[in-house]
Structures are given as structure tokens and as C-alpha cells.
């Protein structure tokens, strides 16, 4: 819009200036009149009679009496006496007149020559002026072309700027779209990874069902004995340790109630807006209390009678029982969320798989499952925490649990590593003293420090992790 307005404004201005210029040029052209015919010099001085006058001005010869004698002489003297003076005056007049005429011939000639020269000069100057005027008009006509071409180059500069702005705009638009597409692609790629896992799980399940079906058909055909019942559930933790002892164990090793509350706080938001959340292995009810404070309805389940009693004493809804037995007793889609903190490591693998499958059906679509456990891929966690508790049944690598959760049908799986081992307690890098620095020493230290990093990565990484999934 800006560009169009600008171009129109420039066009109007340009036309007005063009008009004014042409009018001024025409006025200038007309201002110089055509050269008039120049006046002629006066005709040349008439000298045609001058020679005759010079020949004839003397009307008297010598005294006529000088050549006579006698009476003739006397008569001549008488007559000369009578007419001679008049004739002499006439001759003197003639002489003066001819002399005058002779003297003015040059003046007349010079005057004419002067007039002629003046007229020539004036004409010459006028012709020069006319030439100047013509050249001025030509110049102004030429400068029009010059201004036009200069204007054209400015126009080109304007067009260049407009083109550049346009190109920049197109590039920006392209990059915006590109950036948005890349951002989306990043997320799609991650989602595809999860889908791949789900599909693999579905395929695996299909194969297993096919195998079971074939086995069943084969059994029916052979009329053999019915397949063995599912393997018995593993011993639960009550089978191994008396309830009250476990309460003491928890008090000693699990941490104070305040510590646990602090640790569990991060899960509260996950159940924002949910209802009927099950806290499996609710222990002393720290998380149930946190949910209650938020107004989220929840109940706990623990196999340990003493723990359940502790919860009830605090006014929390806690039930005593085995996880699978309880889960199978409630209707499908009845739970609004499920959390099991430091519980699944107490399950034998077949029990865990059944538990996850059942949990998927008991949860409502859109609800979350949260499974926190020790991280056995951190050697410190395994040796110092996992094997410390004799009720732990099976160490679960983070990727293993994540896979099992996905394989049970949950999606939007998040694996979050928790409880980083304190940096200052890790193995530390060795430093080369500046005065001992040499290339072999630096290389040695480099290799040493890399190994320190590697050992730290496997031994002292994260003590716990959590897998969060969603029932879609």
C-alpha cells in the first residue's frame, strides 16, 4: 500500500514538473524575436563631378592683356578692368568650393565605412545572440533527457529498494513458515517414536494372542489337560516382612514425612482437576494429604496394615489390600489417576505386567499414571538403596519401565530422571598444575578426566526416576 501511494504521488509530481518545464522552455523560445533585416549603410558619396569641378574651377587664364599690344591691349585692359574683378571673385569662389568638396571626400567615405562597419558588427552580435539562444534551447532540450535519465536511475534505486524490501519480506515469510514447520516436525518425530513403540507392542500382543489361540486350539484337539493356570503371584512384601517392621524400616530409610511431602509435591499438578485418584502404596499418606489440600478426591491402598492405620488416623481414605486384587475388584474406567511412588520395584515382572494392563483398563481416558521408582542404572542407587530394601523384587531400568508402560497402551510417556547425585560428592577432575603442564601430561589428564566423567555417568547420575503416562 505504501509503495503504491508513493508511486502515484511521485507520478503526479513528475507530470506537474514536466508541464512547468515545457511551458518555461516554450516561453524562452518565444522570447527571442526573429532577427530583422539589418539596415543598409548609406549610398556611397557621389564623386562623379569632382574631377570635372577640379578641372573647371579655374575660369580665368593669365591676364589677357599680357599677350596683346596696342589698342587691343588697352581695350583688353578696359574690359578686364570692368569684368576682371568679378571673374576673379568667381574663380576664387570656385576654388574654395572645389577645395571644400575635395576636403570632404574622405570624411564622407569614412562616415559611410563607419556606418557600414557598425551595422556589420551589430548584425554579427545579433547573429551570435541568436546562435546562443538556439544553443540555449538545445541545451535545455538536452538537459531534459539528462534529467529524465537521472530520474530513471533514481527510479531504479527506488525500485531496487522496493525489490529488496519485497525480497526480504518473502524471505521472512518463507523463514516463518519454515520455522513453524521445523517446530512441528520436531514434535511429530518424537510422537512417531512413541507410536512406533506402541505399534511394536500391539504387534507383539497380536503375535502372543495368535500363539495362545493356536496353543488352545491344539490343546482342545488333543483333548489333553487344560493349560496350567496363570503363574502364582509373587510374594508380596507382607509375605516377607512383618508389617510393623516395615513401618520401622520406612521410618528409618525412606525419610521424614516432611521430606516425603516435599518430594511428592511435584506430582500434585499432574492430577489437577482429576477425581478418585488411587495412591498405590500410600504409606503414611503424605501424597493423599497433598491431594486433599488441593481438593482432589483420592484414596490410598497399602498392603501394610500399620501404614493404613496411620493414614486413617489422619482422616485419610486408605484401604488395605493387594494391588492386583484391589484393581480387579473395581469397575473399568473408575479411576481418575494412579500414582505409585517407590512401589513397582516390589513387583515381580509378571505381576508388574498384569498390574499395568489392569491399570490401563481401570483408568478413565485422559487420566494419568505416575510410577516413581529407584534408578538401578545409577550404580550408587542400586548398591546403596535398591539392595538395602529386602522387599525389592526386581530392579527396573528406566527404559524397561517406560517400554512396559507404553506396551500396556499408555501414551504421551514422559521419563523424568530425579534426585541428581550431588556434584560435590562425585569423582572430581584432576587438574594439572600450571608449572607442570606439558603435552603428555595434558593428554594424560584429559584421558583421566574423560574416564572420571564416564564413571560419574554410570555410578553417580540420578537416584530415582518417574514414568508418567496417559490413558488416551
Amino acid at each position: 500500500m505504501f509503495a503504491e501511494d508513493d508511486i502515484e504521488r511521485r507520478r503526479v509530481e513528475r507530470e506537474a514538473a514536466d508541464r512547468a518545464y515545457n511551458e518555461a522552455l516554450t516561453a524562452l523560445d518565444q522570447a527571442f524575436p526573429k532577427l530583422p533585416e539589418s539596415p543598409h549603410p548609406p549610398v556611397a558619396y557621389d564623386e562623379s563631378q569632382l574631377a570635372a569641378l577640379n578641372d573647371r574651377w579655374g575660369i580665368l587664364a593669365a591676364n589677357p592683356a599680357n599677350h596683346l599690344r596696342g589698342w587691343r591691349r588697352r581695350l583688353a585692359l578696359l574690359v578686364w578692368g570692368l569684368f576682371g574683378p568679378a571673374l576673379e571673385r568667381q574663380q576664387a569662389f570656385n576654388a574654395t568650393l572645389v577645395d571644400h568638396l575635395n576636403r570632404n571626400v574622405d570624411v564622407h567615405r569614412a562616415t559611410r565605412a563607419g556606418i557600414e562597419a557598425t551595422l556589420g558588427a551589430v548584425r554579427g552580435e545579433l547573429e551570435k545572440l541568436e546562435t546562443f539562444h538556439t544553443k540555449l534551447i538545445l541545451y535545455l532540450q538536452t538537459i531534459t533527457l539528462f534529467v529524465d535519465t537521472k530520474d530513471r536511475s533514481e527510479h531504479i534505486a527506488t525500485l531496487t529498494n522496493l525489490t529488496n524490501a519485497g525480497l526480504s519480506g518473502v524471505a521472512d515469510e518463507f523463514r516463518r513458515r519454515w520455522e513453524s514447520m521445523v517446530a512441528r516436525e520436531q514434535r511429530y518425530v518424537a510422537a512417531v517414536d512413541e507410536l512406533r513403540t506402541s505399534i511394536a507392542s500391539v504387534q507383539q500382543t497380536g503375535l502372543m494372542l495368535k500363539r495362545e489361540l493356536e496353543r488352545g486350539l491344539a490343546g482342545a484337539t488333543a483333548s489333553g489337560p487344560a493349560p496350567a493356570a496363570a503363574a502364582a503371584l509373587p510374594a508380596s512384601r507382607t509375605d516377607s516382612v512383618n508389617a510393623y517392621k516395615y513401618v520401622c524400616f520406612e521410618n528409618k530409610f525412606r525419610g521424614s514425612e516432611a521430606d516425603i511431602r516435599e518430594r511428592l509435591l511435584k506430582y500434585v499438578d499432574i492430577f489437577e482437576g482429576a477425581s478418585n485418584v488411587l495412591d498405590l502404596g500410600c504409606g503414611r499418606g503424605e501424597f493423599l494429604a497433598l491431594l486433599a489440600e488441593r481438593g482432589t478426591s483420592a484414596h490410598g491402598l497399602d498392603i501394610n496394615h500399620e501404614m493404613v492405620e496411620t493414614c486413617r488416623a489422619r482422616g485419610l481414605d486408605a484401604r488395605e489390600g493387594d494391588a492386583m486384587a484391589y484393581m480387579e475388584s473395581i469397575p473399568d474406567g473408575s479411576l481418575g489417576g494412579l500414582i505409585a511412588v517407590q512401589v513397582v520395584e516390589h513387583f515381580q515382572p509378571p505381576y508388574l505386567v498384569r498390574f499395568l494392563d489392569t491399570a490401563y483398563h481401570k483408568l478413565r481416558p485422559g487420566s494419568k499414571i505416575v510410577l516413581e521408582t529407584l534408578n538401578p542404572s545409577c550404580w550408587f542407587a542400586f548398591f546403596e538403596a535398591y539392595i538395602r530394601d529386602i522387599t525389592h523384587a526386581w530392579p527396573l531400568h528406566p527404559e524397561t519401565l517406560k517400554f512396559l508402560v507404553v506396551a500396556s497402551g499408555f501414551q504421551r510417556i514422559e521419563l523424568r530422571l530425579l534426585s541428581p547425585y550431588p556434584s560435590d560428592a562425585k569423582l572430581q577432575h584432576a587438574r594439572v598444575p600450571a608449572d607442570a603442564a606439558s603435552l603428555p601430561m595434558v593428554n594424560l589428564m584429559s584421558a583421566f578426566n574423560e574416564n572420571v566423567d564416564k564413571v560419574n555417568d554410570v555410578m553417580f547420575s540420578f537416584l530415582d526416576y518417574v514414568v508418567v503416562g496417559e490413558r488416551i
Partner: protein
Amino acid sequence: MRIAWFSPLPPHRSGIAAYSSEILACLTSHAIEAFVDDGSGRAAVAGTRPIAGVAVRGAHDFVWRHARHPYDLVVYHLGNDLCHDYMWPYLVRYAGLVVLHDAQLHQSRARALILQHRETDFRAEFAYSYPEAEARIADLTVAGLGGTLCYFWPMVRIPVEAARVVAVHNAYLARELAGEFPGRMIRHIRLGVPDSLASTAASAAEVRRRHGIPDEAVVFGCFGRVTPEKGLTGVLRALAQVGPSVPNVRLLVVGEAPSYFDLMAQARELGIADLVVTTGYVDEGALPEYLAAMDVTLNLRWPTGRETSAAWMRCLAAGKPTVITDLAHLTNMPSLDLRSMTVACTDPGATEPVCVHVELIDDINMLRLVLRRLTEDPALRDRLGRAARRYWAEHATMTVMARDYEAAFASAATVPNPAKPEAWPAHLTADGTATARALTAGIGTQYPLGPVSGAGMTSAERP
């Protein structure tokens, strides 16, 4: 470890100057000397705000100090701004840890070289960086016509190749650079900021009173230099569209504006000037109370140099709901898509949004949703704010960043210097004798010494 630290420092107003002063205060186990730009005189060194335990020196002092007592590591903080130009002659000669704050250096490098009338050097660097590209593209930049096109050619190859280790502040960029420059060591240092949750409600109320913002108003705010890159033109357009339906909304813009960008004129044109408050430049010390006065912060940015915004991290630390531009390098951050109310993240399991994102190709529509939804839904604001604070505590504290720096130091200190590529433009590898040769040739003498490797630099490269 004895470390030379090249970075602008306060009172310089760049974000990297503030960043440097904050992280330096956390790396006290090292003997760090900071080298600032002293090209305009020693006053720049004297005027630098002191940092406990850190000696501040002029960059010119680096060479002789290093020659006398070599540093274990040289750290360069490089960004797309002229204030980083002074460190180029050093980083191409003294390999170290290059912290790349922007993966886009085209504009600043071009500007710096063109200001020194070194267009030829710029063309050479461009041609080296992009041998497959049309060489005349550099001419566009030289002619001042680069514009947005510059973003297609970020020109980071030379500093990456010059470094022992390159560090960046987001994982996406680290992966991208590692892919683009195989064999180079690229590290991700998580960006940390101090806790900015210090201001009281009283100071927030005072800020609102000062600017005539009603107590009940929902304030969307943003910080920093007010430039088109902050996306505020789009915010104004969206605000003009939703303003009548959410009369409580206010936009508070904190920061100085350049003369070419008049935000209030745009607001007046759209008829929403009464909903917009601009403060102009605000002293660094007053920023926390302005942050406290905001209900939602807008941390939009386009175009991007793949930078991670410290300003944004400060807002997260303050427990504010934040709105960001949906950029590829931020997709690991769980963010809320208000159109579908779903969480978008490269981790499909992320369930708790830390911020709200606005797609570049649907920005006005999404900004309308942002303004309406976040104004009307205090519970959502509260939830986002708590998630933001948790994210900061887990991933973006100064402790986290210092820990990553320590690991990067350890790695960079033991990595050997990379070999300079033979094809590097000549001005980057000049041995420094060119001036002496020119001078001696002028008086009919031949410069008597052969090249001294790495002993100096050309007149053009002399800082």
C-alpha cells in the same frame, strides 16, 4: 584453572554483559581475568563495574599476559552484536571455549568489517563459509541490502572451526551444529539465571500506581529494547481485536525504543493507546519490581539467531506465565497450545505446560487467544506460573549453569588446539609481518625477519 574471559561487562547494556557478570560470580574456584573492549581507550576498563574476584583488563593486554604466563583456557562470548567484534582477532589465533550466544553472526561480522572498509575481507569470509553459495550474495550485504536474507547464511563456520570447544545454550542448536560441523566438539550449557522472585507485592503495586494501571488489570508485559523483533506489532493488532471483550487487559512495555520504532504511534493508530504503557529505559535495579507488576510476560522473538533468552528465564524464575514464539530450538519445552489446550513438546509424555507458545504462521489468532484466555483464567495463569518456577528450579538456576560451565571448562582445557583450515581467508591467518614489510619496503629495505607463527596480526586485524 586460570581463565581469560572475553566478554562485554556492565555497565555495557548488552544482555551478555549482565549474563557474564552473573556467571562470573559463580565461578569463583577459578582465577578468571576478564578482557573487555579497550579499543576506544583505557576508560572502558576503568569504567567496568567490578566483579568480586575477577580482574578486569583491556583486551590489548591479553597477548603479552598470555605470552608471559599462558592461560589454561580462553573463553569467548560471541553474539550477533558489534560489541563482540573486538574478540575476533583473538579467537581466531588463541583457540578456546567459544560460547555462541547467537548462531547468527552474519550481520555483526559484516557491519564490523564494512565499518573498517574491509569489504574484501567480508567477501572472503562469506565465500569461505559458503563455498556453494553465489558469491555476490555478500555484495548484497555490503550494499546494505541483506535484510532478512542474512538469516539464510549465519556465518558461524569460522568461530566454530577456531574453537577447541563450542558451547551453546540449547540442546537443539548443539545438535544442529554438531551435524553441520562433524568432528567439532559442541556442548550444551543450560542457561541459568538468578532467582528473580525477590520483589514484594508492595513494589508491584507501586509500579502499577506510577503508570496508572488499575489494580484489577491483568498486565501483559515485556522487557528489553523495544524493537520489531519483539513481536509487539502483532500483540497490538491482537489487542485491538480483543480489547473490547477484555477491558481489564493492559500492555506494559519496559525498555528503551529506537527512533525508528514508535510503538505508541501504532497503538494510537489502532485506537488502543489507553491500553498500552511504555516506560522507556528502566534501570536494571528496578526491573524486578516491574516484573512483579506483570501477570503474564511476553517473550516473543522473531527472527531468531537460536538464542536462549535470559530475560525469559528470569520470568520463569519469577514464577510468571510466559508466552513465547514457537521456535524449533524451544520445542523441548512443554508449552501450551491454546487452540487445542494440549501440551506441545518433543517429549510426548510432557503433561505439564511451562509456558504458552504462539506459532509464527498463526500468530495473530494465537495472540488473541493468549490475551483472552490468560486474562480470564487466573487458575491457568497460576498453574503456568508454578510450572515455570519449578522448571527454573530444576533446569535454569545459576548452580545448574555453573555446573555445566565446569564440565565445559574441564573438557575445553584438555582438548588440543584445532588445526587452522588451509582454506581460511588469508587475513585470518596472516603472520603479522605485513605492516613491517610494507614499511621497510618503503625505505628500500627488506624486512629482515621471517614469519613468526601466531606472534601478531595484520594492521587490519589489529584490535
